[in-house]
């Protein structure tokens, strides 16, 4: 009796401990991070971006009762500490056709901040002075404005994460699936197969920082890819292969032998059998493997920091200088380590947790959808 009671108490303590830990962690992250999440946070660039633009201002008779309306640029502005922030643009505003110094169109948008008109700093101007200044320069035609677009958003990380997911899967999924197919359907059972399977198991157990180290040495340095999404994706592909291979193998093995025999018995070749019967039937398993892989990519940091870099930008190439990109998780790591910005880090963490949660739901749904017979 006493033994039973002790056992029960131990069980309750252990399980409530783990539930509590979970609640505390998630709670902390959400409490800290949730206030920082809004539309701007998800869509804005990470860093402020300052650009000089040329605009052709016109003096018009257009007037508005509001003090904050500047007719020459057809915009409503708001005075903030060091600048004037555009809060609304009217149709046909010349700011929409602004050009940067390379003469490319650079549309000035709502929430952009004007900090200089030609060489005049607007810092200490009042609303009237700003309005006057704008109207006065209007007569000269082209005016150069210094415009700052505010950052603080995670859009580049979201896009980089997506890129890395797509790129890694594009490499790891076909290789992994075909390897699994080879290992289960073609390879002769024996020592070599045993060794390969052992190697795959071992690979699955290696800490990801070691993959990162390998990726840095081989892809970043030896193959001269520099910190780039390609180097990151290749490293992640290697990291994902064991999971994809073993999950796919398991679902291939679960396919009834009868399907293969029936297909072969109908005069199908082995290849036809594999691609028409075996692989389609393994699809739910493969999908789950891919979704789990996406989760792994989203959550991965160690393997990416030294391969894909930590720059918060949308990469514009696969390799080289402009290809370096931080994913959500690497950015989170960097924020904590280098900037100590816990609030932003928690906001990113909330986004990551929600993403992983959605992926888990998706994989559960697929498993359920395909295992229950109609």
């Amino acid at each position: 009796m006493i033994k039973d009671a002790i056992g029960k108490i131990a069980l309750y303590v252990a399980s409530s401990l783990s539930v509590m830990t979970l609640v505390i962690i998630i709670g902390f992250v959400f409490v800290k991070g949730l206030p920082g999440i809004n539309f701007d946070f998800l869509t804005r660039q990470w860093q402020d971006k300052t650009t000089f633009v040329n605009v052709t201002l016109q003096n018009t008779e257009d007037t508005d009762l509001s003090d904050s309306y500047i007719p020459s640029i057809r915009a409503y502005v708001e005075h903030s500490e060091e600048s004037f922030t555009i809060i609304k643009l009217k149709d046909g505003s010349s700011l929409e056709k602004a050009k940067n110094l390379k003469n490319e169109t650079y549309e000035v948008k709502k929430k952009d901040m004007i900090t200089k008109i030609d060489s005049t700093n607007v810092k200490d101007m009042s609303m009237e002075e700003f309005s006057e200044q704008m109207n006065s320069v209007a007569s000269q035609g082209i005016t150069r404005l210094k415009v700052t677009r505010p950052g603080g958003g995670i859009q580049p990380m979201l896009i980089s994460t997506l890129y890395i997911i797509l790129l890694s899967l594009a490499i790891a999924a076909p290789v992994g699936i075909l390897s699994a197919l080879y290992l289960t359907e073609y390879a002769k059972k024996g020592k070599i197969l045993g060794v390969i399977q052992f190697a795959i198991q071992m690979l699955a157990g290696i800490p990801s920082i070691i993959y990162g180290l390998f990726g840095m040495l081989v892809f970043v340095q030896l193959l001269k890819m520099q910190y780039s999404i390609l180097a990151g994706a290749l490293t992640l592909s290697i990291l994902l292969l064991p999971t994809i291979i073993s999950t796919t193998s398991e679902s291939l093995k679960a396919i009834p032998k009868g399907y293969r025999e029936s297909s072969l018995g109908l005069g199908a070749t082995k290849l036809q059998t594999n691609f028409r019967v075996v692989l389609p039937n393994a699809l739910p398993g493969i999908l789950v493997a891919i979704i789990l892989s996406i989760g792994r990519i989203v959550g991965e940091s160690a393997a990416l920091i030294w391969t894909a870099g930590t720059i918060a930008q949308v990469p514009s190439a696969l390799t080289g200088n402009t290809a370096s990109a931080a994913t959500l998780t690497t950015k989170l790591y960097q924020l904590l380590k280098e900037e100590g910005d816990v609030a932003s880090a928690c906001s990113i963490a909330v986004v990551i947790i929600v993403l992983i949660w959605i992926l888990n739901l998706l994989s559960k749904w697929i498993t359920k959808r395909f295992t229950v017979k109609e």
Partner: protein
Amino acid sequence: MTNNVKFQVHDLDLYYGDFQALKKINMEILKNQITAFIGPSGCGKSTFLKTINRMNDLVEGVRIDGQIHMDGIDIYKDIDVINLRSRVGMVFQQPNPFPMSIYDNVAYGPRIHGIKKKSQLDEIVEKSLRQAAIWDEVKDKLKKNAQAVSGGQQQRICIARTLAVEPEVILMDEPTSALDPISTLKIEDLAEELKDKYTIIIVTHNMQQASRISDKTAFFLHGEVVEYGETSQIFNNPKEQKTEDYITGRFG
């Protein structure tokens, strides 16, 4: 008489590694007849059945000596295995339709053999399902998953799937062992009907089944054919004591 011979088996030995599973099998299997193989588990009857469409090729470490001639052609030498299997179809113990629609199941064989035209496939599917005596039961649900119908219906769909390839021979490996008695009788009736067009070889554990539907029966024991003859003779008056012991249940 020789014209009626579909398969001529000559001194067939089969080894799984060191284990000899079939010993010097000699047999003539006749066209448009149902030939039944009976015998205790592990006697080699299923193994022998699978040598006829070379399903044993899939098993690792298998070695086969001797010959099987189909219409005078050595099936281990003079014919491509894919061709052989489309001429010698097989129905398995467990009804195992692919997890796709009834239509796709039956059309699977024709499709892999290159038939793509919808009208032609429609025709084959209907004809095969009719031949398998299941058309009326499934004609309104051809798009339904084949695994959603009853076991007996699944097995007849599997038979239709085999017929769709237009084989000459149908091998049945305990085709009713997973079915209820009524479904079993339906499959037996079907076999009777099909034998006008096909040569049927059936492995069965059910001796009543062998005696009900087969023309000839072979009794296998320890990899050997103990006795092979007219079914009525085997079940009424077997020549060999071992056959007698087996079919009267005095075995072992």
